[in-house]
């Protein structure tokens, strides 16, 4: 019998720590600091709008690019929050989460199999590399450094660019490190992108969770809008992960092609979610502010806890993750996390899940109540002290 599955897919490594994930998800009595989604429920007025749309029988397909009203509200929002202007009719597409936008965006831009390169800074979210491979690109990893607070520098970018480079994935605020890029960082990166004529896929799903100043979008830097796909969504800022709703904005030529793929693969994003999202983006600013403040309190709590524990860690200013270094214990991240899980029953994620350069770090999520964090961090302290005593 012929091999029923494609080599390209078989050869794609399953997320390196699948085994670890499987163990954790079966341990029901463990405390977890391992999730990548908000602990808040979707604010009630948003859920209510979803329910109302169902009551009214709004259960049909929307247009491929999504409800026009939602696209209009997204454009108003992006202008109001980040000073980028898009045309709702031709420069926006509503997708099934930010994830679909990453996939479709890369497929729309890459000529498969001819060696076009996609630059992926790591540590970063797990799906950029596989999506680039599936799109037929050659992923090229840029290893971000702890000493730069895991920011991407213009020099690092320059060093990675070849004449095959087409797209830079820009994942900031970053999962798993919590790193951000500020305006000056972005301006330096933008200069390189313009000079070298490369496109940017800017994944700004955590834009609203920036704790230093307001997030700056690279698309707002002169000369960048025409070479940027801005990806955002409702999951993190409005605690709407299960609704699966995101969007991409960019030059008409790219959005047009993305819409084609989206049309054949997906048809349209879930209608109920789109109606709920209209409410979120129109009337949800206060919810976002309130949740951001709660995350920021937890962030300060953790930064202080790690300082007291003497575990080296740069201060993260974005998303809801903190990325301490555990290299001193002479174990791999996965060993550290497995032992911590077995001995103290707390689940955190090995940094190596987010790229080889995440080795030596662990990702701790603070999408948990302070009480929960306190309990888990207390256990981490006990664990760390035991390891240090044994040395």
């Amino acid at each position, binding site marked *: 019998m012929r091999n029923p599955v494609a080599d390209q897919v078989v050869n794609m490594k399953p997320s390196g720590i699948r085994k670890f994930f499987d163990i954790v*998800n079966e341990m029901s009595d*463990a405390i*977890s600091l391992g*999730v990548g989604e908000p602990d808040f429920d979707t604010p009630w007025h948003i859920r209510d709008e979803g329910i109302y749309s169902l009551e009214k029988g709004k259960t049909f397909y929307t247009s491929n690019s999504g409800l026009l009203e939602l696209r209009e509200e997204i454009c108003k929002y992006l202008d109001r929050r980040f000073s980028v202007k898009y045309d709702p009719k031709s420069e926006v597409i509503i997708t099934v989460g930010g994830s679909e936008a990453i996939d479709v965006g890369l497929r729309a831009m890459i000529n498969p199999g001819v060696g076009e390169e996609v630059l992926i800074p790591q540590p970063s979210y797990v799906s950029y590399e596989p999506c680039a491979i599936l799109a037929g690109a050659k992923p090229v990893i840029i290893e971000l450094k702890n000493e730069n607070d895991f920011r991407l520098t213009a020099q690092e970018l320059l060093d990675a660019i070849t004449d095959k480079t087409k797209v830079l994935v820009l994942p900031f605020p970053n999962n798993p490190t919590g790193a951000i890029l500020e305006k000056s960082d972005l301006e330096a990166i933008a200069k390189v992108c313009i000079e070298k004529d490369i496109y940017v896929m800017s994944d700004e799903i955590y834009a609203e969770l920036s704790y230093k100043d307001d997030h700056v979008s690279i698309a707002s830097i002169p000369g960048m809008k025409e070479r940027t796909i801005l990806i955002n969504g409702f999951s993190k800022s409005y605690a709407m992960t299960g609704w699966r709703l995101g969007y991409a904005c960019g030059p008409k030529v790219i959005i047009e092609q993305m819409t084609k793929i989206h049309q054949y693969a997906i048809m349209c994003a879930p209608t109920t979610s789109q109606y709920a999202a209209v409410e979120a983006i129109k009337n949800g600013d206060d919810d976002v502010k309130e949740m951001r403040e709660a995350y920021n*309190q937890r962030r*300060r*709590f953790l930064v202080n806890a790690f300082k007291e524990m003497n575990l080296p860690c740069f201060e993260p200013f974005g998303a809801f993750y903190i990325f301490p270094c555990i290299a001193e214990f002479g174990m791999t991240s996965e060993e550290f996390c497995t032992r911590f899980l077995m001995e103290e029953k707390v689940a955190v994620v090995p940094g190596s*899940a987010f790229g080889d350069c995440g080795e030596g770090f662990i990702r701790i999520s603070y999408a948990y109540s*302070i009480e929960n964090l306190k309990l888990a961090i207390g256990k981490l302290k006990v664990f760390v002290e035991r390891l240090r005593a044994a040395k």
Partner: protein
Amino acid sequence: MNDTRLKILTFIEKNSRVDLKELAVILGVDEATVVAELAAMEADGIICGYHTIIDWDKTAAEKVSAMIEVRVTPQRGKGFDDIAERIYKYPEVTSVYLMSGSFDLMVMLEGRTLKEVSSFVTDKLSTLDTVISTQTNFILKKYKDHGTILEKKYEDERMMVTP
């Protein structure tokens, strides 16, 4: 009101037992400031007390609470203040609010038995000169009190680990 005060109040409204050193870390201000602001707000009567939310139904204690809608005749020059004061001085009265709408004062009452509450209303409240009428509503079950859900415990339904 300054931003720090607002942040302190918002936090301790939900959790007044927080350690002050920890509160300072969480809010990103120094501990001395937190201590000073709390003292100042206590002195100014902005912070009026620190209470505990108790679900008495889960204890063996006998407790009955009622909300009583009271209509009164306001007095010249004093409005409702004097009559409100007359009422709130009774220790069994837990809250008194001046209301808009079809009645004037909302009086919350706690007693040990139905009878105790009823006799307070008939003997003490209704007999006050300025009280025109009362309507007593007994509380059957408390689902949520002071922003806290009493019934269900929060359960985290998320997966243990997600990328």
